[in-house]
């Protein structure tokens, strides 16, 4: 039913940036084949959450979240036979997603020119930290590295204090790139279907991170302080205030909200920012967080409790409906979608694959190999078959 039904995507993506991009394409209906190597798994398979161990042999929930809806093939691309199989699959596919270190795909003999040689209509989506070219193309980065080098951290931080990055548990650029990269690949698939011409997409996470603060480059020479905490135009006051019960209450107060604040908490009419700020500090500090939020919201002022992740499912679930989808065993959940199409909905139809779960089927049905040939590949370590 999905809008990309009929598109076949080869997925060499790993961890978040690459694998989550192809997961979105799979959610949209594409047939996505996750390709791992007998000697190199997606490192996400080994990422187990901190805390008490999960049951032995259980699939990593991080891996499961970013590889649902995919079929699994274990293929050694370093062996000539493995490369040949890959090229045969590429000939009948529409796209390929990868986020290896720059140069790896070429060293495997699978650079864009080679791929285009077997399939001129193929879209190769290369997601990298800093891009295919340039003096920093081999710069090793995680998401927060890119916040620093792209200018985002320069403007993130407490008022007058040091820069701040989103950190290991958010890694903001790694999350957001999947949405952007998937959209660029869909646009290129559209172009390829219309013209017969594929393309090589060079997607730099650093560039995306700078693009997402694009307006700051226009005012880059302003003398304003680089970091101003939670303050933000056009709000007169915007910050988190501590309530009597220790909650952080986020408030965005517009200039025109001052009369509401006057009526609600007695702040002076026409109060300036510092007076409003102090009034909020005192008033929220004397109340329970939920009470303060309810009264501010009823007065027409934007306010909310700063939730932690463990409270989202129980306390805010009515405000969202697709980002996380209940399912699986033991009351578990799947990572869902950031967008939905009403008539051709994104959906989760299958769990993430075990290593090599579909190797035989894929080689037989899509690459045309016979069972004896497939057994021979397995014996030589070119592929792995599921138990």
């Amino acid at each position, binding site marked *: *039913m999905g809008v990309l039904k009929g598109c076949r995507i080869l997925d060499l993506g790993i961890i978040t940036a690459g694998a989550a991009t192809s997961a*979105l394409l799979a959610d949209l209906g594409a047939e996505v084949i996750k390709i791992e190597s007998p000697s190199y798994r997606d490192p996400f398979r080994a990422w187990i*959450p901190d*805390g008490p161990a999960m*049951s032995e042999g259980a699939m990593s*929930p991080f891996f499961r979240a970013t590889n649902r809806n995919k079929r699994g093939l274990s293929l050694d691309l370093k062996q000539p036979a493995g490369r040949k199989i890959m090229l045969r699959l590429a000939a009948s596919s529409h796209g390929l997603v990868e986020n290896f270190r720059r140069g790896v795909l070429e060293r495997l003999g699978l650079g864009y020119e080679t791929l285009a040689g077997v399939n001129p209509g193929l879209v190769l989506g290369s997601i990298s930290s800093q891009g295919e070219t*340039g003096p*920093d*193309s*081999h710069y090793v980065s*995680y998401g927060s590295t890119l*916040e*620093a080098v792209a*200018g*985002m*951290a320069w403007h993130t931080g407490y008022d007058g204090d*040091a*820069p701040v990055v989103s*950190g290991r*548990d958010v890694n*903001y650029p790694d999350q*957001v790139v999947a949405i*952007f990269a998937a*959209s660029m690949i869909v646009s290129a698939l*559209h*172009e390829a279907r219309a*013209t017969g011409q594929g393309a*090589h997409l*060079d*997607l730099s996470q650093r560039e995306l991170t700078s693009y*997402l603060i*694009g*307006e*700051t*480059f226009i005012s*880059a020479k302003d003398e304003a302080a680089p970091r101003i905490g939670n303050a*933000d135009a*056009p709000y007169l006051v*915007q910050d*988190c*205030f501590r309530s009597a019960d220790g909650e*952080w209450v986020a408030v965005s107060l517009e200039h025109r909200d001052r009369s509401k604040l006057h009526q609600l908490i007695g702040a002076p009419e026409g109060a300036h920012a510092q007076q409003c700020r102090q009034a909020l500090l005192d008033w929220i500090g004397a109340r329970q967080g939920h009470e303060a939020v309810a009264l501010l919201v009823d007065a027409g002022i*934007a306010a909310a*409790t700063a*939730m*932690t*992740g463990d409270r*989202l499912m129980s306390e*805010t679930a*009515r405000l*969202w*409906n697709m*980002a996380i989808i209940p399912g*699986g065993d*033991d009351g578990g959940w799947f990572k869902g979608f*950031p*967008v939905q*199409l*009403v008539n*051709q909905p994104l959906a989760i139809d299958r769990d993430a694959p075990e290593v090599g779960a579909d190797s035989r089927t894929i080689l037989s049905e899509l690459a045309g190999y016979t069972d004896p040939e497939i057994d021979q590949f397995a014996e030589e370590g070119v592929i792995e078959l599921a138990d």
Partner: protein
Amino acid sequence: MLHATNYTLLEAPTPDCPLPLRVAMAMTGRIAADLGANVLRVEGGCGDPLRSVGAQGNDDGALFSFLSARKSTLHMAEVSGSALMAIAADTDAVITNKGLGGEALALPSDIVVELSCFANDDARKASEFTVAALAGLLSMVGDPDRQPLRLAGHQPAYALGLSAFLGLSSALFGREFGERAGQREVVRANLMDTIVWLNWKAIPMPGTDAEPLMRAGTSGEWQVVRCADGYVAIVYQEADWERLCKALNDPRLSDPALALRADRLRASKRVAALIEDNFTDMSRADIRRMALDHRLPLGPVWSPEELFDDPQCTERDFFAAAQIGSARVPGLPLLMNGKRPGPDTVDAAIIGRATR
């Protein structure tokens, strides 16, 4: 111009459209325009509220200037449903918002992208900041003993803009090639779902009872420390530690008490102080060179202004193709067959120009 992006998109916020959704809509349109689409902005007689955000004097603010580049503007004395209906009939897609009643206008385009702050009809007043609070993102950034902190710029609204563009590009593909080709499609995205989706790792995983994740700030593994001419983000995974120690060649980091990650986590402030001590005499350029030489994911903190002359940005013409008046802004973060999509030059006069 790409064949596939040769379409017309109408940005049609309702007069009462919340500011975060205006920003998101404008970001979706900005990406479409960068790819070569014909993007029309509707602007009522009172002007677009985005113009004044961060503005000084009568000039448009930087936010509006960035987001409205490469678009045309349709000035309307009053933005009414009937007027929008007439314009939308000639477009391929419309991006709009759910009104306060929870309904979007039933505009006659093949594709309608509907944005909202929440998935349900909750009509509470919302900002990017308060929705980021509700979605748990604020609690993940900053110091544990200080208030939660927002990321720079308009990340919640921009991320919603990216989500909406993914829906739009998918619906355009489906209109041409899908099983329901030629039929109407409605795309829905909201601020809350987008941020929860981005912040998915903060929700405790099934099968575990680990402590909920919270902002680690100055007690975290990744910290920002001072160097000779500014700051650098210390970013590394377990596999990078040995290379970091080798690069710094500081015997204090070889202390057996810091050999294991669990030890380093407990001593995170000490580790950061030791690394900072090594960076005292190093500039950010020195640290960049060291990171390249030793394959370390260290992040020198550059300002936007410094990036105009950054060798990586310069080599890839990241700013060159996006002239807006005298200012420079990033181009679309995509090279397609080595070229950045979009017109070779941007007609600066198009910004804010009325086309009737």
